[in-house]
């Protein structure tokens, strides 16, 4: 009816039309796999991931751990960091999305790794599912599943962070191993 009206959401042809994102195949078990940990700069993120890494090694037999921290909470991890993870890891845990921009960019990191064939599990606090879901849609993976943990994370004591990590491990293992990560469309 109003064909002459210009759609203000249409800009330059860019990465916006990526098409559907293919997710990585899941292994049967984590035993012997090389684990990557991709942290952002949020408070307690590295401590959380370190504890997850320790528990995955102890309980599930993951081997060499590559830990990287990206410099910027808004953007996806820079290529050199992604290359380190692609080259040195079979599975990656990404976190912790506990703010407006970092939850979305953590999901983007996870989907980028998935597209490289690396199963990834993204950890976000439950307060930011809308932002995480919106990013999954933008990245061609609507319904991409990530692990939610209670909010907030930043004010936890070291013991609290370890407890949070311990509680998250079963979900992380489930998402890295089962074939249920496909978008729920």
């Amino acid at each position: 009816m109003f064909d002459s009206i210009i759609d203000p959401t249409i800009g330059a042809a860019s990465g916006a039309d990526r098409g559907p994102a293919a997710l990585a195949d899941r292994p049967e078990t984590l035993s012997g796999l090389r684990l990557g940990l991709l942290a952002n700069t949020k408070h307690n993120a590295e401590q959380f991931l370190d504890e997850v890494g320790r528990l995955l090694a102890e309980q599930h037999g993951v081997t060499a751990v590559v830990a990287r921290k990206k410099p910027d909470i808004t953007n996806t991890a820079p290529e050199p960091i992604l290359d380190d993870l692609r080259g040195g890891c079979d599975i990656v845990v990404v976190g912790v999305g506990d703010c407006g921009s970092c939850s979305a960019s953590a999901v983007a990191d996870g989907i980028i790794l998935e597209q490289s064939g690396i199963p990834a599990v993204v950890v976000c606090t439950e307060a930011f599912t809308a932002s995480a879901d919106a990013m999954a849609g933008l990245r061609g993976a609507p319904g991409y599943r990530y692990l939610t943990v209670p909010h907030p994370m930043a004010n936890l004591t070291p013991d609290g962070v370890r407890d949070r990590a311990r509680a998250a491990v079963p979900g992380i293992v489930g998402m890295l191993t089962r074939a249920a990560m496909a978008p729920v469309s």
Partner: protein
Amino acid sequence: MTGPPAGPAEPAADPAEQARAVIEYCYEQDWTDGLPVVPATRSGVEAFLATTERGPDEIIGSAPHLGRSITVAQAAANAIMAGCRPEYFPVVLAAWEAVNLERSARGAWQSTSGPAPLIAVNGPVRSRLGINYRGGVFGPGFRANATIARAIGLIVRNGYGIRPQELEQATQGLPGRWSVCLGENEELSPWEPFSVVGGVAPGVDAVSAILIRTCEYVDNRGTDSPEAVLTDFADTLARMGAYVGGGHSSGGLVLGPEHAQLFGRYGWSRADVQQWLFEHAVRDRADLVAAGKGGEDNPVSDPARAGTRFPMLPSARDIPILVAGAANAAMSMVFRPFGWAPWSGRSVPVAWPRALSQARYGN
């Protein structure tokens, strides 16, 4: 009353009804910030593009993590929707560029802090376009101020697709997120224009932008002492609530002309005011610790500095000060820059197209 007319509904012939239908259509497309928008049409966009020498497809902003880029034509469409007139468009483009100079703008539009751009305009363009600088500068009431600021918000929303409660995650936001655009009252300022601080020559139309989290007034009409007024400013600037922890807090001032002229009368330069405020906007470290803002990895708790008071602001230079409003009461506004990088210190000259007549666009 009669019953409804028989037969199929005809399109409304009344132009006002048609306009209303167009506004509703734009709401249905989810293109608005909650207020009605002006529909953008091809001829409308062409009129805007005629005010700039930049090409319609030139990219003027990118969010690589979202896979979205903004073109000049797209900015024009959103400026139309915001209610701008074509001749505002060069100012919108300069404002957009100024906003993007700010390091804090990178994650700002998705941030829980929900910051607003404070857009400040200097130069003769204020009078030519009717950009208010003389009273009630934080609005509302002036088309240029209201729509230039709103255009930036619609570009973010529609261009990047950052919508509230989706990618935009502001916890509470703030009053006037996309409505703060003011002219500096150069005529009543004792100092050089703010855009000159930002590196643009005097008399040149220019736009500066600072992302802010809120504003708070300081009403001080009872003294003729610069130090007394500064003491009042320093108290508000040193407020703990604005301090996020880590690094320093942030603060700047939009001085009302009466306060600015008081400083001018007593020979205080802008730098003098900044230095005084930096030195006096301090707090006891114990206050911050008591409020839970002095963790062990925090500069508040630096053992080497124990016994000194904590400077709340990062440096004298990082206290931006401009002058706006009416000379009818001695009040000023403290604003709170977002993030740890208060202001880039760079203003952006407004680029007017050579092809257009001086009479219409000036410069």
